[in-house]
């Protein structure tokens, strides 16, 4: 059986969540941080219940998770299109819809190759990518700290805490994958879940606090706060390092999409065992189709509801048997 370690699962999911955070639009405040932390805590509780109950997914639950993976994959591509103008992807700038489709096509190609190698290699690569990404983010944001205005952290919130909790819950594109892939994790599932949610809470907190400190005063005119914070975080006087963020952005986009594609392909294998070839290709095509349907909308309510459903259905829709095969 293809098995992955809890660190590898955590890295895969963390990358997905970080990419979601990069693409978050609209105002941010310290309430956003509380929202993300509250959402994470709720998800951890639900995940621990699932870990305690265990079992294998029923066919109906598998169909739900397949839909969820397609939806989350769609949101990844949609978010990529929304944000790509701000981070400057050369192929996309000035090429309109064709540029966007080309960007999506290239990422889809890399996803297709990645998923063809199986979950283990992608999980191993995700650990290296996450480590490198966090290192680069560290450089980006440490340089921000020196120019940061920490009083910005207390800028008053314009939205309710309930909205921020909803937004924090929606920032969890990997929950379906967490449920599906948890059967492939070596050791106790609960350990893997704690690892992931703790890492997510820590990295999100650092990221959001830095973003607030850097862009707090111009939050009203900021479309993508994390991207803007990265652009404002310049360690040198005479040169810019925005492109470092582009590298992390692209790498995280690939792994976020690859995670959803692999999850979808695994679920198709469970639902339609006779469908052997072209599983990943089918998932990618459907994912890009979903992205075109979503087309730039954030759909926070739908995402938050789907994330909540993903964790509730897991223990409810589980059969008492062996762990899920990762294929």
């Amino acid at each position, binding site marked *: 059986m293809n*098995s992955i*370690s809890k*660190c*590898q699962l955590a890295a895969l999911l963390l990358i997905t969540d970080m990419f979601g955070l990069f693409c978050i639009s609209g105002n941010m405040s310290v309430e956003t941080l509380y929202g993300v932390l509250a959402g994470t805590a709720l998800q951890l509780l639900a995940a621990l219940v699932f870990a305690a109950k265990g079992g294998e997914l029923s066919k109906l639950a598998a169909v739900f998770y397949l839909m969820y993976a397609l939806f989350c994959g769609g949101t990844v591509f949609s978010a990529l299109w929304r944000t790509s103008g701000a981070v400057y*992807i*050369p*192929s996309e700038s000035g090429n309109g819809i064709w540029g966007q489709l080309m*960007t999506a096509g*290239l*990422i889809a190609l*890399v996803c297709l*190759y*990645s998923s063809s*190698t*199986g979950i*283990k*290699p*992608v999980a*191993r*690569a995700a*650990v*290296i*990518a996450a480590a490198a990404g966090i290192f680069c983010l560290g450089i980006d944001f440490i340089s921000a700290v020196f120019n940061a205005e920490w009083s910005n952290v207390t800028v008053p919130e314009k939205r309710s805490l309930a909205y921020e909790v909803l937004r924090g819950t929606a920032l969890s594109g990997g929950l379906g994958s967490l449920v599906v892939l948890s059967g492939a994790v070596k050791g106790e599932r609960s350990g893997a879940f704690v690892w992931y949610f703790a890492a997510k809470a820590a990295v999100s907190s650092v990221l959001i606090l830095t973003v607030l400190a850097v862009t707090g005063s111009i939050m009203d005119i900021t479309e993508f706060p994390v991207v803007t914070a990265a652009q404002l975080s310049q360690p*040198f006087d*005479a*040169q*810019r*390092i*925005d*492109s470092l963020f*582009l*590298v992390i952005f*692209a*790498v995280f986009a*690939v*792994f976020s999409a690859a995670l959803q594609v692999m999850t979808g392909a695994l679920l198709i294998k469970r639902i339609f065992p006779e469908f052997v070839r072209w599983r990943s290709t089918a998932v990618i095509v459907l994912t890009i189709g979903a992205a075109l349907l979503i087309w730039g909308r954030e759909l926070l309510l739908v995402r938050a509801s789907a994330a909540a459903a993903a964790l509730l259905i897991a223990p409810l829709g589980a059969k008492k048997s062996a762990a899920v095969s990762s294929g």
Partner: protein
Amino acid sequence: MEKGRLLPVLDSSIDEIYRISGGSSDLLINRFVTGGIHCALLCCEGMVSTSVITELIFEPITDIPQQKDSHGLFHYINEQLLLSTDRPAVRDYDTMFRLINSGFAVLIAEGVSFGLAFGVQGYSSRGVQEPSGEGNVMGAHEGFTETVRVNMSQIRRRLKSPELVMELFTKGQKSHTDLCLCYMKDRVPKSLMEKIRRSLDDVELEAILTTGYLRPFVENSSFEIFDSTGTTERPDVLCSKLIEGRVALLVDGVPYAIVIPRLFCESFQTLDDYAYKPYYAVFIRWLKYAAFFAAVLLPSFYVAIVMYHPELLNSTLFMLLVEAEKKAPLSIVTESLFVLLMYEIIREAGVRLPKPVGGAVSIISGLIIGDAAVNSGLVSTPLLTMTALSVLGGLVVPELNPQITVLRFVFIIAGGALGLFGISLLSCAVLVNICATEDYGFPYTAPLSPFRRKGMRDTAVRMGIKKMQSRGFTVEEYHE
């Protein structure tokens, strides 16, 4: 090859040997009578030592007293004469020709359907010399040679433990190449040995002329950019691998040994690392990591930054590059591909030409063409500098040079087409490919991913030998 048993009638047997060999000129058949029995001694010209065969075979054999029959003669030779330490029996023509062509002399006699072979090898071979590819300052200066038995003795000399097992066997339907599987039986898991043996059972090649013929059989069949098996031409390096629980495969006629499995981080380790103080070894090791990344990525980063992300440069550097590039008639991608291609052609010419000419050609063509290209304005100086640095970086990790060369080209194209975004996408694909490289359950990227903290002590850093001696590391720790 004929599998038939030896014929008991000497004349018929010799006719059969002539028929099988097609009357090959290098097959020597010496007929003589000893102990009253008609015999023939067969050997291959150039494969046996004339002095040894005269002293150890001819002189004692012609002094044999009268025997009642051929069985008595062979019994006498076996029991009374110690003609050679290596004396396999020959019962069929297949074995006979394999032995004769390996430097044995085979004695056949009238009335018996088997022969006696004596190891009297005396073919000329290259002596033990300093390895040409794996340079070393503080370690031994002995490398493998083309003779498998000499290589076996070099390993045995360094590892006198009875746990070291060397299994000699032949492969290649036509070449009958001697292969030797070496391992420490207390370190290598039995399951790994079984898997490797099963992989080698699939070898049905007609000839094995280099290690490259065998490596695909012991490597994963899926597309891998990097090799999951390594080669070394140093017996001391091989011994260190054997102690770590790896398996080695020696091939007769090749001065390299195949090491199974191989890890990515090993390409950055040399024996010298363990001869210097740890702090210097760590410095050198990180220098090699940096050189590897520079070798693969430096030209592509240059292309991407100049074309799409000039904001990464400070104004002085930016103006300098603008000044240099505005004179160049070609686009930056074309220019960098042209320079790299030029370098690869010069390098290939330097390798293929005779040694005294090759070096001179490399230097002169590099200097003349490089200088002329810059002076004529065909190539910009900063680009040439970047390319030279990248090429030099690749030479720091010679084992990965083929991969570095190809990746460098692909990354330039990706950087030229899509900037850092393209480089990032390609990096992801390459990273996944490297992580997918795995043989017999040993991930190529261990101990980085899957992460093994203990393994990082000789990967990220190089801890002291005193600490290492208590570690008892075997590669089995990385098995998944």
